[in-house]
């Protein structure tokens, strides 16, 4: 088991290295950031000084090595535009995004899985068909459009919930959170719902498929023959049996949630990293772009690692063998 963990860690580090190189080259190789930073009327001298100042005159691989060396020390450079360290900037915005992503994943799990199990348990009922129709919509309708409809319905027409911004936050562990107050929750509700729709659809589909398969298995028949109630069977047997694929998807989805937060945060003016990257793209603020992408890649790799390791916890058959069969 330990060997497996070490092996996975090395693998994760390699993927990180590859990602950082890709991101760096991708972002720095094309276009010239200096055009955005300096007014076109600036003299040649000021221009050259700025290029030197930002280290843009060196060969690309040198720039990358410097970047990598700093990266290891947690230094992602300074924002061209705001002139503050990228790490500070990203970290200050990260809690808002994490809170949003977590809230939407929780909605996906705690609403999606029960609905999916129900739809798999009684596939022909009207309710299940309705659930499946919603999940088809969740898959195909773009997130931003759903966000607009949510705002139109709940903020403009019904005036129940605020349409944007984060609202008041409460400090906990030195970071501001929305979910601790009722008002904060109201601000969180629409963006979280918007972001969760895709996950909800996916959880419904997966748990429905899993349940349909498991319900026909001998395990369920044997449990029924032992007199277990349908509730106990669904709750104890089926849920555990379908949870293994769900955990994988859950992990991967958490990563894509961070990505899709870009859209939701823009619509709802949610001050997270997603809004930050959009702003940095429009202002060609490369260090911020690179910093954000490296961070997302890091989160991704970490999540994949955690998912792989939690397999072992969920499936006792793998615990001893160490490696997934």
């Amino acid at each position, binding site marked *: 088991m330990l060997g497996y963990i070490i092996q996975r860690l090395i693998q994760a580090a390699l993927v990180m290295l590859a990602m950082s190189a890709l991101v760096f080259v991708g972002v720095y190789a094309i276009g010239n950031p200096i055009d955005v930073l300096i007014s076109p009327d600036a003299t040649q001298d000021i221009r050259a000084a700025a290029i030197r100042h930002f280290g843009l005159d060196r060969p690309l691989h040198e720039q990358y090595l410097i970047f990598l060396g700093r990266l290891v020390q947690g230094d992602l450079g300074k924002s061209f535009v705001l002139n503050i360290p990228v790490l500070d900037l990203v970290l200050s915005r990260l809690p808002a995004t994490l809170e949003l992503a977590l809230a939407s994943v929780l909605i996906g799990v705690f609403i999606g899985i029960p609905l999916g199990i129900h739809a798999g348990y009684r596939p022909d009922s009207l309710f299940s068909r309705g659930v499946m129709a919603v999940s088809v919509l969740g898959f195909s309708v773009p997130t931003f459009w759903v966000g607009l409809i949510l705002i139109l319905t709940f903020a403009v027409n019904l005036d129940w919930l605020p349409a944007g911004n984060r609202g008041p936050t409460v400090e906990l562990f030195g970071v501001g959170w929305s979910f601790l107050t009722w008002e904060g929750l109201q601000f969180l509700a629409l963006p979280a719902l918007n972001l969760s729709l895709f996950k909800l659809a996916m959880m419904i589909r997966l748990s429905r498929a899993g349940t349909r398969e498991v319900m026909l298995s001998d*395990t369920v028949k044997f449990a029924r*023959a032992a*007199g*277990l109630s349908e509730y106990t069977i669904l709750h104890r047997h089926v849920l555990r049996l379908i949870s293994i694929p769900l955990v994988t998807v859950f992990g991967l989805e958490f990563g894509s949630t961070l990505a899709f937060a870009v859209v939701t945060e823009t619509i709802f003016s949610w001050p997270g990293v997603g809004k930050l990257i959009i702003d940095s793209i429009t202002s060609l603020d490369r260090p911020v772009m690179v910093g954000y992408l490296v961070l997302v890649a890091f989160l991704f790799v970490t999540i994949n690692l955690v998912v792989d390791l939690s397999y072992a916890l969920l499936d006792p058959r793998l615990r001893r063998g160490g490696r997934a069969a």
Partner: protein
Amino acid sequence: MSALLEVQELRTHFFTRAGVVKAVERVSFALARGEILGLVGESGSGKTVTGFSLIGLVDPPGRIVSGSIRFDGHELVGLPTAEMRKLRGKRIAMVFQDPAATLNPVLTIGTQMMLAVQAHGGGSERAGRDLAARTLARVGIPEAASRLDAYPHEFSGGMRQRVAIATALLHGPELIIADEPTTALDVSIQAQILAEMKQLAKQSGTALIWISHDLATVSSLADRVMVMYAGRIVESGPVSTVLRSPLHPYTRGLLDSLPAMAKPGQKLNQIPGSTPSLLSLPPGCPFAPRCSRADVLCATDPPSVTLPGRLALCHHPLMAAA
């Protein structure tokens, strides 16, 4: 002995797109307390569906169409699901063919047995674990108490089936339906489990319906045997007499195809043809197309031939041997 189970004219049909599959057709039999009944037939003969019908677990699109199942005087056909559930595991239990598929791979043995205990009131967790451990010990699992925290994959196939049997025994049921519980196991383990089941049933006075495709297994275990063909019981009677002198040509065919019955060097006799599709049964005797004794008469429904304690569904029973 009073009858524990009385089945009358049971019909279980499956309503599929291709048509109605009459998996169980007019099956009648009775079972006394503590009696061991062997239910024999080829795959698709309806023996498993008969077992599931008794415990009320026929999956859609199948359902019991008509007939009666009286268990200890109570009618089970049409019993509300909740009432049926109270009987399952408590008074009627079932063991399945493949223990690798029946036990939940991601729950410990202890948890699964606890769930079965608690399904019928159960009481405290402590008491539940004790009961589970004692029952595991009864089916011959060493160090049962410490094995409760193990997962199914940590057991061998035979041990897994013992766990399943122990789960069935938890509440001391009056009837256990065993659906080919040894088929998936090694031959040496099969014999062990067979002997143990027989002993457990006799000890506790539990009636046992042993479903098998193997006449030889049944002969060493059962008091009485029923042979099923195309959803019908074509012959039934005490094991020794049925084996010695079968009435139905189909039973004869089954016996002839047993390796143990053949003389050394003699070729095994196969029954010609194959089991008919239950979707399109010929009128009259379903075995007629494969039967050497069939004639025009066999196109009409075969009569039941009764001898003392015996029954066969045939126009031309092998009476000479009787």
